[in-house]
């Protein structure tokens, strides 16, 4: 009997066995958005929700100022709290407000560049996925990118969004200048030479200092990258393989697949090889396939593991070569909620072992792979990589219509015990006192913030909790 036929017949027996009922995995507990209300203009006021649908609000207004003057007026006159929004891709409640949601979509595109210095100035509302082509056209490249490119530049900077690579910093580590419209409607130019303290505070600032309208980035020459994907034994990765790969490759990340003995290894390195595009992205269908397996076999982990191992045994490695901005991102059409912490590098793999044990023994509902990355440290005051030579990051995901809190409540203590700092855009339960203990420049940041926004116009309830305001 061929292996495929053997698998099919085995699953046929499974299908004949008693199937579990359709557990909603906490879907009934998920927060519901407010109902749209009719505004004074007769149009419905629509609720705002983040990408996953977990965070929401019914703001008095949602606006997209078209100029700096309009933005200044919005900040001076609009009902507060005033909250800037990029792509709504944060999982923390950074945006929800009863006041004003300010879209930055009109502050976009390549505004200027310096060919000699390899620098470029970009509108803060530019989506990461839209900056590759214009930068490539002027011979420049970002040194690194996240694996999702839906976010706006402003949102990515505000939350210290990052890619992976032991010698590659997060996006904000490449900022050499920025412009900030303060809550008073004053435009501040900030760099290491002008308004230095505001610059250090603003690079990662949760949209709490005002609205950043543009960033100048220090880039590298445009180039091609080779992206390779393969499977390796998870135990071998945890026993030294991960460290060797992280040291050997320009960019490296690993996925731990629950209930599978192999891990996914993705490496990205500069190359002169000719372009070989990646082809259609199949990740989303793969995740939904793993969900189906969860739905059917979560009650029988042994069979679930056996099937995962059989199905991954003959996997053939993949390789693709393309321009830099097409090498990093992947489509994420299956929505989720996420928690990610950045740990001291030496605590990364011991903590990952604990996460693996917790997922596989306590949370059979989990089917999303766990993402493991490394990030070079930097000196941004609220950068979660502040003071680290290299950080190690672990991200756990939960299907968007199912309650993530029981899972995250079991994982977060592992991250905290390792001295981790949460990603600013991803779910966590920390408050002001926790952050004060984690960030050596916390008080400096609060001082700059209070000076720029003494009335707290930029603070929604979540940010008041974060800053203890």
């Amino acid at each position: 009997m061929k292996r495929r036929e053997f698998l099919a017949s085995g699953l046929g027996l499974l299908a004949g066995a008693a199937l579990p009922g359709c557990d909603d995995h906490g879907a009934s507990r998920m927060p519901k958005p407010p109902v749209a209300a009719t505004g004074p203009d007769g149009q419905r006021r629509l609720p705002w929700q983040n990408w996953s649908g977990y965070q929401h609000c019914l703001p008095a207004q949602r606006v997209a100022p078209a100029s700096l003057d309009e933005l200044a007026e919005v900040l001076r006159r609009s009902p507060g709290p005033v909250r800037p929004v990029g792509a709504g891709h944060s999982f923390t409640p950074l945006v929800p407000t009863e006041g004003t949601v300010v879209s930055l979509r009109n502050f976009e595109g390549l505004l200027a560049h310096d060919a000699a210095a390899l620098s470029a100035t970009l509108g803060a509302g530019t989506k990461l996925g839209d900056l590759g082509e214009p930068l490539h056209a002027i011979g420049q490249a970002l040194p690194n990118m996240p694996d999702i490119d839906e976010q706006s530049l402003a949102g990515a900077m505000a939350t210290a969004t990052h890619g992976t690579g032991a010698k590659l910093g997060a996006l904000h580590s490449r900022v050499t200048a920025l412009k900030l419209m303060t809550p008073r409607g004053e435009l501040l130019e900030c760099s290491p030479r002008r308004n230095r303290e505001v610059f250090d505070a603003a690079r990662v600032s949760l949209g709490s200092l005002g609205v950043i309208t543009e960033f100048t980035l220090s880039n590298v020459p445009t180039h091609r990258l080779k992206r390779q994907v393969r499977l390796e034994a998870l135990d071998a990765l945890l026993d030294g393989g991960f460290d060797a790969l992280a040291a050997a490759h320009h960019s490296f990340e690993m996925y731990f697949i629950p209930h599978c003995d192999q891990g996914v290894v993705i490496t990205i390195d500069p190359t002169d090889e000719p372009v070989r595009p990646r082809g259609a992205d199949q990740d989303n269908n793969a995740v939904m396939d793993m969900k189906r397996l969860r739905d059917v076999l979560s009650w029988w982990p042994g069979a679930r593991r056996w099937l995962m191992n059989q199905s991954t045994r003959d996997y053939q490695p993949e390789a693709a070569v393309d321009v830099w901005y097409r090498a990093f991102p992947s489509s994420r059409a299956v929505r989720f909620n996420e928690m990610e912490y950045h740990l001291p590098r030496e605590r990364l793999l011991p903590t990952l072992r604990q996460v693996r044990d917790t997922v596989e023994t306590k949370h059979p509902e989990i089917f999303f792979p766990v993402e493991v990355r490394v990030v070079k440290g930097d000196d941004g005051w609220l950068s979660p990589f502040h003071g680290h030579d290299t950080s190690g990051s672990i991200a756990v995901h939960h299907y968007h219509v199912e309650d993530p809190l029981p899972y995250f409540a079991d994982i977060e203590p592992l991250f905290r015990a390792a001295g981790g700092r949460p990603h600013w855009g991803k779910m966590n339960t920390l408050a002001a006192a926790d952050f004060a203990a984690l960030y050596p420049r916390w008080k400096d940041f609060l001082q700059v913030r209070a000076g720029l926004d003494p009335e707290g116009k930029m603070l929604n309830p979540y940010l008041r909790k974060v800053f203890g305001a």
Partner: protein
Amino acid sequence: MRLLRGCVMTLWVVAGLCACGEQAAPAGGAAAAPADPKLAKLYGQTCKACHTSPGSGAPQSGDRAAWDPRMAQGMATLLDHTVNGYKGMPPLGSCMDCGEKDFEALIRFMSGQGS
């Protein structure tokens, strides 16, 4: 994670055993931008990324075969899906300041029933 599709290819036999799942929609074609510059800008900044990308699972702009059954559900249903998100589509279709009239015009354009 593209390989994960390959990793679980043999698991297709379990598909359909539980009614709780969802699946990305099949691919379609592409379309030009709306004639109205304001709408074209909104489209380019928001809808276009997924609705001209077959791998996204979203119904593709101008693909009448994909859109006609959706339009048959009525504009109110499609607006609700847009405002609150639906399967892979995020709430507000990622347009943070769009109103209902904007969404309606964008839906009509993508469905091939408006310019």
